[in-house]
Every structure is written in C-alpha cells, then in structure tokens.
C-alpha cells in the first residue's frame, strides 16, 4: 500500500489538505498524490507540495458522479490514506470510496496523525458535546472541514501533472443548479465577527452592530432566529450547529443568550466577548469577557471607545 491522496472540488480546500498530507508523509514516507478537476488547480497543487497530480478529465462536472473514477485511481495505486475536503459533496465522494474499499472513514477530523501504523484522529460527537479520539486501520478515508488547516507554502520542487480520462456517473441527471442567494460574505473566513441575536428589537437597530463591526473591521454574523425567523440577515450569516462554525480571533456576541446550538459554532474563537442585559444568560459562561448591560447603551459607547 502506498500513497497519501488528497482531493477536494474546492480549490482552496484542496490546497489546505496538503498541509496535513505533508505531515503524514513525514511518518508514512509515502508520496502525495492530489486529484484535481481543473488545470489551474493541478498546477497549484503541484507547486504546493503534491508529488504527483492527477488531473481528471470528465464529461460531467458533477463531483459526486466522479466517485467511482476517484475510487479506481486510489485503489489502483494502493493508496493508504485519502484526505477529502469536507464539503457536503466531498463527504459523499469520500463515503463512496470508503465503502468500496471496505475501509474506515473519519468525518470532519479536527486533527490527524499516524501512530502504530494506524491513523489516529479526533472529532466531535453528540452535537459538539464530546470530543472523541479514534484509530483507523489503513487504508483510511478522512474528510477535513474547510479552514482546519492553512495551505502550505510553495514546495522546493514542483510535482508532476498527469491527465487521466475519468468516467462520470450516467444514472443521475442534475438540473436547476441554483447558487445560494447571499451577501457573498463568508462569515467563516472572517477574522473578527460581531454576532447579533434576539436582544435587538428590530432590524433597523442592527445598525448599532454594523457601526461597531465597521470600526473593529469585523463581519456580521447572527444567531439562528435572526436569520431564519426574523430574516434580518441572510441565512449564510448564521452561526451555529446547523450553520457556520467560525474561529475568528474575536467573536463578539451581542444580545445572544448563548444556547449550546449557537455556541458550538463559535466556541473555538480565540477571544469571545458577550454583551447581554441578562446576567444569567448562558453566553457569559462561554465568554472570556462580557458586559452586563443594555446593548442599546453599550454598543455606541463601545464603538466610540474603539474608534479612539
């Protein structure tokens, strides 16, 4: 068995996967093969540390339809670890490959390493309540969420690129591809976030948060009710268990009570600050710093103080 494989249909994510791949290479001493879907991806991956890049040439661009082809390449090469970008499409492809290999698969790994010839990984269980450490026999498939790792810096020697024809699935017809209507802002990429909750009485009042976000150079995020029930912010700004998980250096929760379904999306932020009028709000337990007070009074004062 040989070969650390990486794949994601998302270019940035596939580059990020090279970082843990390079780490595994140190222990496994096996070459890294990256699978790519476009020429540009292929060249970049080759430059960032992939020893070999296989550029898949397929009739259809539907990622999931390439599962069988991807499996053939991995199993044909006798790969030992397959790192797949943990987008929803990626998880689908990864599970297919794992099933055909009769191999174990870790979903949404937070960390991974090789120990005693097995892949050891940590990930969350019970809706974020617990952290589990698992060991998987090789060959193993792992999906890694976006932004778990940073892309590596350029490698000394670029890898080779080989183009391969790939058959895509012919059974499923895809139509009506509709992009998510959103602001185009990716809250999960923001380094600072001001997050708003039900403590705000009406949509216009969000301006207080917007002003603060502007001086802090932060993006706006929100709790689920603000997006889903009130529609004050687009759904892709919602942070929580079924929304985004964020890890900014500063997460400022304003008027958010701090239910676990929300907190789990933000609890790995470097510094968490909460502003809430209810001193018993659970958010304070999850925060490094907090102010008990009326956000209508606190926010303008805070904005002015930060501006100075």
């Amino acid at each position, binding site marked *: 068995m040989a070969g650390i494989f990486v794949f994601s249909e998302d270019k940035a994510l596939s580059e990020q996967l090279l970082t843990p791949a390079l780490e595994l290479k140190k222990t496994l001493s096996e070459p890294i093969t990256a699978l790519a879907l476009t020429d540009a991806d292929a060249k970049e991956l080759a430059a960032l540390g992939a020893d070999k890049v296989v550029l898949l040439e397929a009739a259809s661009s539907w990622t999931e339809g390439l599962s069988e082809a991807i499996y053939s390449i991995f199993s044909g090469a006798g790969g030992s670890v397959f790192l797949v970008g943990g987008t929803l499409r990626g998880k689908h492809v990864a599970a297919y490959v794992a099933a055909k290999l009769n191999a174990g698969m870790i979903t949404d790994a937070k960390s991974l390493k090789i120990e005693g010839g097995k892949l050891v990984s940590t990930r969350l269980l019970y809706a974020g309540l617990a952290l589990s450490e698992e060991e998987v026999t090789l060959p193993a498939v792992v999906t890694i969420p976006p932004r778990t790792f940073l892309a590596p810096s350029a490698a000394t020697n670029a890898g080779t690129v080989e183009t391969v024809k790939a058959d895509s699935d012919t059974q499923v017809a*895809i139509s009506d591809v509709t992009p998510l209507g959103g602001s185009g802002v990716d809250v999960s990429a923001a380094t600072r976030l001001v997050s708003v909750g039900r403590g705000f009485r009406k949509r216009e009042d969000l301006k207080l948060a917007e002003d603060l976000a502007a001086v802090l150079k932060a993006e706006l995020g929100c709790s689920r009710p603000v997006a889903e029930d009130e529609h004050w912010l687009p759904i892709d700004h919602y942070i929580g268990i079924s929304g985004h998980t964020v890890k900014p250096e500063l997460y400022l929760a304003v008027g958010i009570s701090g239910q676990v379904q929300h907190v789990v999306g933000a609890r790995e932020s470097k510094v968490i600050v909460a502003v809430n009028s209810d001193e018993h709000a659970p958010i304070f337990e999850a925060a490094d710093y907090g102010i008990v007070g009326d956000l209508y009074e606190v926010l303008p004062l805070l904005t002015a103080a930060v501006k100075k």
Partner: protein
Amino acid sequence: MPKCLVCYKWTLDEKDIKIKPADSSLDTARAKGKISDFDRNAIEEAALLVEKQGGAVHALTYGTSAVKQSLKDVLSRGPEKVYWIADASADAADACVTANVLAAAIRKLGSYDLILCGEGSSDVFNRQTAVRLAALLSLPCVTYVEKLSIEGDTVKATRKLDEGSEVATVKGPVVVSVLGQINKPRIPSLKQVLAASKKPNEEIKITDLGLKPESLQPKSVHRSVKGFVTKRKNIIYKESSAATNVAKLTSSLAAEGLR
C-alpha cells in the same frame, strides 16, 4: 405506489448526557433513547409520500438489544412493519460494519423503490451510511435532500449543498439521505400510538445474514471520548455605569492584542 424502506438508528439523547467534572468523561446513565433526529425526518418523509400516493413503508434498524425500545415508537410514526437486528456487535460497530449489516439485511428483504436514511445520526453524525449502503447495493445515491418526490419509478430530489441547491433526477431504486429541513415530523396521535402495538415487527438474526467475520470487524475504534469543556476567562463587567464597563472591556481587549 412506492415501496419505501427507512433505515433508522436508536441513539442516546445527547441532551441527557452529562460531563463528569472529575475527568471530563461522559455520564450516559440517565440518557434516554430516541430515534435519531434526522431519521425521524426520513420516516416522516416516507410516511407522507405513501399517504399521498399509496404504497408501503417498512423500517429497518441495527443496534444493541436496546433497539427493542424503538419498535412501538417507530410503528406509531407511519411504517407498517419494522425489521430489527439486535446484536452486541452494534456497540463497537463503525460506519463500515453498520453499512455491511444493513446492506446484507436489505438484500434479504427484497427490493424497495426508495431507501431512505437521515443525513447522519444525532450521536456521531458520520453522514456515511446512505452513501455506503448505495455503494454496497450498487444503487444510485442522492444525498442532502430537502425536497423529495417520486413519480412512477423516477425520483426527483432537491439537494441543498454548501454553495447552493440542485435537482437530481434518477430512476429508482435509489438510496436517499434527507436533511432535517425536509419536513417537520408530526407528533403521533394517541390512536397511532395505540395502533402501533398491533403492527408486526420481525427480528433478523445477524447470523442469518451470511456475513463474513471481517465484515463485522470495525475499522475505526474509539480510543477515548471526553466531554468538550471550554475553559474561558469568564471576566464579566457589571458595574452600574455602562461607560465604566466599556472602558474595562476595551483595556482587556487591548491586553489581548485585539485593538
């Protein structure tokens, strides 16, 4: 008149699980069982389809002997029959083993137009079972479905993905995994609860599935499970003057290098 099979898991209710302060291990002693959240959506979706178009809904589950507690519950939610496999192997079963067992059972049960699963189980949320089942049974698979319809033998599903949505159309039989937002499971009426006792349930012995011992060997094994405990500074400013609080916060933020 689709013949549907819903695969479900009987899980521990995570809201009853406590973290032991001494060593952060999990205390599941008081945790009650429940049908995994998204599996409930899958059951409801099948029930709705069959209510509208006729057909049948069967349910299938693999777990420890605890699954017996799930039978009346699942039968009160629409399915006319439930098949169950109770075996100690389920305790350590990973997604690989689970899929092997379920696929072997499905091969035994005959053909279905639609096999439904929840997106992932509420305890481990692997999100692998549906795809693995489809791969093992050589069936097409449509995942992350938020809207589902079936006409004749054609399945049409709207998928919700990270970047947007798309519609997948495919001829059955098909394996589908559904998202929580696909429907809101109805609360069973009392008549449905009482009628559940009269519906049939059938045990499938794992030894009758013809599985090789390797198929029951998990490939991933837990080394440890610990409660995720966040240690935060919890420095809360609650002076009567908002200005004072703000001043204290800004100097704390400066100290953290966040100005």
